[in-house]
């Protein structure tokens, strides 16, 4: 309960000057960054868009537009609610202080040194290309998240165009209002009917603004899952990285073992530069060989321990990540179903309004 109150006061604070809003958004970004790096096996909730995208009407492309600012505020609030209701994330101390601590929070986050744990983009990309045996489920999930991102962005783009066109249709009807009024001026019996029908046409034309404003909330719900796709991909990338790391470690261990064997038996199984150099520069002394073998054996032991822990780490990661992914899937199915229902309800409401207006107009016409 306490954290919810803190959330609200934070959100209210955002209504203050532009500067503080931007700082606040960057603090949200910092928080999310911290969470993503600290909990790589969790599908971390996404932030709402920084800049207005998929706009249907040129006006709302402005980041200072009060409607956009308000929707973003709601999005940020939603983000905090998501984190607060996550079984693992809600227990994080940094998150708790984000909600409760006024000053010095930024420093506190940086002091955790979380940035050091971050994987470089290049390293991640490399792993993606070179990993040999990633868990099939993660490969499928990555593919799914790519497709999801593609289909939702397509949907949002077309929806914006649909909204634009619908706006045009409704607004042109407003012209009927004016011409009916002008026409009614020269008519005797027909005048009243025309005039009042024209008024209904004006009502009809005006109604589209609220209808489309409501639809923006639906678009925001879709956008959240568009950005969630990225979070899913991040978990998959982490798995690939860990798997690649594991594979590299295993490969390294195998080659060291091989070297050891070669030195011990004196045979060169496969081509190796060392073998060549020893051939070129003469064989090593038994003492040198012994020393080398000893070093290698130490390294091998270290390597085996590392491999063991990496294996364990990897399996733990897969297990906990997959648990969160299942949780996420259920959440997603529930949320999207709700979003579709609310969209259908919006359409029903729009149809009913349309029927009402035209029925009113028809009655006016009947009195002509």
């Amino acid at each position: 309960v306490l954290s919810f109150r803190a959330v609200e006061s934070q959100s209210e604070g955002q209504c203050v000057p532009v500067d503080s809003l931007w700082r606040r958004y960057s603090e949200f970004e910092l928080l999310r960054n911290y969470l993503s790096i600290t909990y790589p096996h969790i599908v971390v909730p996404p932030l709402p868009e920084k800049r207005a995208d998929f706009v249907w009407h040129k006006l709302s492309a402005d980041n200072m537009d009060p409607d956009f600012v308000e929707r973003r505020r709601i999005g940020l609030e939603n983000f905090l609610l998501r984190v607060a209701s996550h079984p693992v994330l809600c227990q994080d101390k940094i998150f708790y202080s984000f909600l409760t601590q006024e000053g010095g929070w930024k420093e506190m986050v940086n002091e955790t040194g979380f940035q050091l744990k971050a994987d470089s983009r290049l390293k991640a990309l490399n792993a993606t290309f070179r990993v040999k045996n990633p868990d099939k489920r993660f490969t499928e999930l990555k593919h799914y998240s790519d497709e999801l991102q593609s289909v939702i962005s397509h949907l949002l783009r077309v929806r914006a165009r649909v909204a634009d066109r619908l706006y045009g249709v409704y607004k042109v009807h407003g012209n009927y209002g004016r011409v009916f009024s002008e026409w009614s001026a020269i008519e005797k019996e027909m005048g009243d009917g025309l005039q009042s029908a024209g008024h209904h046409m004006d009502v009809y034309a005006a109604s589209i603004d609220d209808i489309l404003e409501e639809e923006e909330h639906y678009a925001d719900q879709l956008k959240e899952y568009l950005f969630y796709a990225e979070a899913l991909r991040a978990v998959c990338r982490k798995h690939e990285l860990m798997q690649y790391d594991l594979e590299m470690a295993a490969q390294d261990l195998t080659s060291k073992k091989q070297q050891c064997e070669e030195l011990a038996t004196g045979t060169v199984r496969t081509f190796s530069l060392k073998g060549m150099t020893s051939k070129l520069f003469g064989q090593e002394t038994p003492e040198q060989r012994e020393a080398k073998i000893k070093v290698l054996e130490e390294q091998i032991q270290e390597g085996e321990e590392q491999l063991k822990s990496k294996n364990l780490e990897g399996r733990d990661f897969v297990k906990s990540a997959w648990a969160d992914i299942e949780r996420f899937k259920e959440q997603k199915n529930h949320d999207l179903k709700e979003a579709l229902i609310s969209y259908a309800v919006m359409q029903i409401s729009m149809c009913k309004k349309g029927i009402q207006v035209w029925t009113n107009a028809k009655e006016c016409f009947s009195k002509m």
Partner: protein
Amino acid sequence: ILLFLNFPIQDLSLPNGTPVDTSSPASSSSLLNRLQLDDDLDGETRDLFVTVDDPKKHVCTMETYITYRVTTKTTRAEFDLPEYSVRRRYQDFDWLRIKLEESQPTHLIPPLPEKFVVKGVVDRFSEEFVETRRKALDKFLKRITDHPVLSFNEHFNVFLTAKDLNAYKKQGMALLSKMGESVKYVTGGYKLRSRPLEFAAIGEYLDTFSLKLGTIDRIAQRIIKEQLEYLVELREYGPVYSTWGGLEVELSEQLEGVSACIGNCCTALEELSEDMTEDFLPVLREYILYSESMKNVLKKRDQVQAEYEAKLEAVALKKEDRPKVPTDVEKCQDRVECFNADLKADMERWQNNKRQDFRQLLMGMADKNIHYYEKCLTAWESIIPLLQDKPETK
């Protein structure tokens, strides 16, 4: 009406005793007009029914054209048979209209749909075009049928009954000079000083009326255009939900449902636009044409009055002491009075019909929109249970 027609026309005389000049069709028709007790033709008192239907395409070596069946049912004595069925093409209707304008110049003749259509833009033989034209031609004949004077016109009778209309058309050309129909009202060169207030008011009304109709026509066209552009986007929108459905497991039915629903809305929208194009726009344009031809009749009336005033002035200038005004000036006065009476009566009838026509047209427009929204509402309401469906219940 039937009763009066049994009297030979020659025996009629004006209330003040002077014999009526029956050689002029105008005066006899205006007399009939004035003698009518009841203009309103209910179903019970109606004795003439005309319908246009059954369009057929004719392919000949020289040309391809459409004919329409014109069916007549009547109890009127002017018709030899109680029923007729003939085939007529557009140029026959056009011929009729011209003949009516010539023989009944003091009356408002209903308009015909546009004669020429831009080839390549409109398919003259498409079902929609032919049907739209059929409705307009049907309306044209019905308006004449409802008119107490025009419906008794000889050319109209022939149009409805003749097996070979072309033969009559050729004959008509030869008889033109004998009948002297069109010649009588070609009054040239007279300029009216001022239009009487009531006719000036009609002229102004028609000007504003046709202007407003033009605006409404443009608005309606614009709406149809916007709707079609909206439709284009919707047609891309629906299938994306389907694609998404293919990606999901749990939600695939729901997403497919939304996709199908949007598809249904697309169909409903297409129907709305088609209906507006076929039923709404043509009637608007018809009334604009009507206004134009009515303004021409007003001008003709002005001409007749101008001629009378000029001749009257000429007589006054001669300063002759005659007890009686010369007969040709008297005839002019007659003509003016008949024209004014006919026109006023027709205007009143036209205003009433116009009110009914527009009431029906606009209610129809509202109806089409209501049906569109009802179809969409049904579609969306029907998928709510599908969307709320829990996976366990499947």
